[in-house]
């Protein structure tokens, strides 16, 4: 069957630089001395640690339990001993720490008992749960949990496998397709069954003829309508939305999922991992990483999650003039702030950068509104307008001009004759908008809770007044009776009362010494309240010394939060 190809607007054609590493078969990276496995594999979710320092773990043993809807499990990549559980920096432009389990390999690499998962008999839910428990996430770089993506839709017409790999330098998917096409397609047919897709389309950029041939050969062995399609090499053809557009003509807007349009897209590496997880019961413990750039020996390695990047760099041998190390491709990746960070599930490529290969950007000049960026933008935005608005902190306008449709592909910065780092402005504007939204929802919540508290206090005051009135009436009715010394105070019998009183006195003295500035207006109220309570308590403890030692009666309701 001949698939009609569509095109997306924009895009750029940077030098591919695939030949440096494309010839190198996948080799197993040697075991490092320590594996630092972050419990956070993406910015979305962190797993809960279920091992302790000193535990012996087996390869594939779960060490992090998934939490939240977007959580996936984390596993020990090899057998060994947990030597630390603590904060370590994450491979992230922020250089912030995250909780990591540090494992010292014992060298035996002993597997936990693997259970083959029979997905033919299992229900869909069970299969998705298995994927979650095997820690399967999208390996294209975004690391979105696969079970969530799969769970979003059934009755999908087309399943797309993304083997485009459009970013320069990266060859990990290329090698995977050449060497493990059968497994990828087995995974693809599992995925296809899980979402009930009618046809399977595999999109590969036409600069990878060997991978196309390998995939075609493997595709002829599986059932169902399957086609391997060579798509024109044009960055970012491997962007999910762009690939879907090229292969099916469907455009998926920001905030919508492919499932709503009857199409879903998975990376070839993800399909491979799905196959390993379901057919062999193997959790996701390693991935293929391309080591390339300004190095002596570029190559592709199967690397355990948690391997420090510095360990990997000894394999490829960066040349002396290397000044930075990039994770991901040069268009969308980032420079690692440090090299002792571990490989995570989204690490597809490590590039040693030298000023010769990646020259520092030329000085920024003013935007001349030439529109080059708009012509290059695959999301068909007007990048320079977004730039003006983001630069002026005019985030409302930026959103009006569809800032969030920007996929941060970098095409606009790539072509800009004024060398403006446009994408930096979009990243800044986006994270600023997110922060504001977080602040706003926190403020809204605080306002609601404050108003509710005021309302509750009002109500309690009224109730109290009513009660008091009733009591007064009662007392008046029982005129002549001896006033009971045990009115409301009987609840407060406790030996600690004296302690409180002492503490209070101390606190009071302190407060008199330094009056906190922030309670200027409220202090009168608060203090009156405190004084009232104190008085009541002191009175109670003095009046009722005999009762001390009694357990606190449960009827005294504290004003705890609802």
């Amino acid at each position, binding site marked *: 069957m001949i698939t009609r190809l569509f095109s997306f607007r924009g895009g750029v054609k940077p030098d591919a630089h695939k030949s440096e590493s494309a010839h190198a078969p996948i080799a197993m990276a040697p075991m490092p001395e320590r594996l630092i496995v972050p419990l956070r594999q993406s910015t979305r979710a962190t797993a809960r640690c279920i091992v302790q320092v000193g535990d012996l773990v087996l390869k594939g043993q779960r060490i992090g339990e998934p939490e939240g809807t977007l959580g996936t499990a984390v596993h020990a990549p090899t057998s060994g001993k947990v030597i630390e559980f603590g904060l370590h920096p994450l491979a992230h432009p922020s250089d912030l720490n995250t909780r990591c389990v540090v494992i010292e390999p014992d060298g035996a690499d002993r597997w936990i008992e693997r259970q083959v998962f029979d997905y033919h008999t299992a229900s869909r839910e069970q299969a998705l749960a298995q994927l979650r428990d095997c820690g399967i996430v999208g390996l294209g770089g975004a690391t979105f949990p696969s079970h969530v993506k799969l769970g979003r839709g059934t009755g999908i017409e087309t399943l797309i496998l993304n083997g485009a790999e459009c970013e320069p330098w990266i060859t990990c998917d290329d090698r995977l397709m050449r060497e493990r096409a059968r497994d990828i397609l087995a995974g693809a047919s599992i995925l296809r069954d899980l979402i009930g897709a009618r046809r399977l389309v595999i999109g590969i950029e036409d600069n990878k003829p060997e991978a196309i041939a390998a995939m075609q050969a493997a595709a002829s062995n599986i059932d169902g309508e399957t086609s391997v399609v060579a798509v024109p090499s044009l960055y970012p053809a491997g962007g999910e939305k762009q690939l879907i557009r090229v292969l099916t003509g469907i455009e998926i807007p920001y905030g919508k999922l492919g499932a709503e349009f009857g199409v879903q897209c998975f990376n070839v590496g993800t399909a491979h991992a799905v196959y390993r997880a379901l057919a062999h019961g193997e959790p996701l413990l390693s991935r293929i990483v391309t080591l390339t750039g300004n190095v002596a020996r570029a190559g592709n390695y199967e690397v355990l999650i948690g391997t420090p990047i510095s360990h990997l760099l000894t394999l490829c041998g960066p040349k002396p003039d290397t000044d930075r190390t990039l994770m991901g491709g040069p268009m969308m990746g980032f420079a690692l702030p440090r090299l002792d960070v571990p490989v995570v599930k989204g690490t597809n490529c490590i590039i040693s950068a030298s000023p010769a290969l990646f020259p520092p950007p030329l000085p920024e000049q003013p935007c001349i509104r030439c529109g080059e960026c708009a012509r290059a933008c695959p999301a068909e935005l007007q990048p320079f307008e977004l730039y003006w608005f983001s630069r002026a902190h005019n985030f409302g306008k930026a959103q009006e001009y569809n800032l969030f449709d920007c996929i941060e592909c970098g095409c606009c910065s790539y072509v800009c004759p004024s060398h403006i780092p446009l994408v930096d402005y979009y990243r800044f504007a986006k994270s600023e908008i997110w922060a504001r939204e977080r602040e706003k929802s926190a403020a809204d919540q605080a306002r609601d809770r*404050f108003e509710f508290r005021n309302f509750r206090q009002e109500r309690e005051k009224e109730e109290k007044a009513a009660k008091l009135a009733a009591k007064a009436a009662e007392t008046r009715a029982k005129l002549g009776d001896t006033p009971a010394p045990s009115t409301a105070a009987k609840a407060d019998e406790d030996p600690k009362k004296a302690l409180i009183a002492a503490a209070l006195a101390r606190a009071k003295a302190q407060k008199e010494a330094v009056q906190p500035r922030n309670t200027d207006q409220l202090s009168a109220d608060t203090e009156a309240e405190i004084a009232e309570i104190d008085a009541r308590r002191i009175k109670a403890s003095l009046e009722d010394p005999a009762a001390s030692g009694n357990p606190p009666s449960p009827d005294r309701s504290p004003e705890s939060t609802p």
Partner: protein
Amino acid sequence: MLTALLIMTGIALVLGAALGYAAIRFRVEGDPLVEKIDAILPQTQCGQCSYPGCKPYAEAIAKGEADINQCPPGGEEGIRKLADLLGREFKPLSEEHGVEKPKSVALIDEQTCIGCTLCIQACPVDAIVGAAKQMHTVVEPLCTGCELCLAPCPVDCITMVEVPETVQTWKWKYPVFELRKSA
């Protein structure tokens, strides 16, 4: 001449009527200005502005009784937004009301807490849970960092801790370049 005058008067009357109608038809209920000011205030409810909460301060600003630079948690940005909204000049935060601090939350030292419930009563947003004579805890996501619970605690077991930046809350910085370098 007379016709022109008549026509002008007629137009004026028609327009006036239309405007008057619009004013009645589209009148906004309530006091939108107070709402708008309140929306800018950070809702920390700390009282540093010398009003018992953000809403009363918003009302005071709307009435012209309070200045716009009295809210330390809102900081410079908050003042700027208020100045924009009200068409006033920006002015720096008034020092007598406090200083802008990084967002913090209260932390109760659970060993020392005696369970007196005083902080519960002080908390404007009910962010503290606990029962009498039992250890109390601050529900971190609810805490606004108003510090009102610090003073009432008889054993001084509450401290403010700065909220650390995480990968999730980390923000990309505004791009900066040395323009001069190239000169």
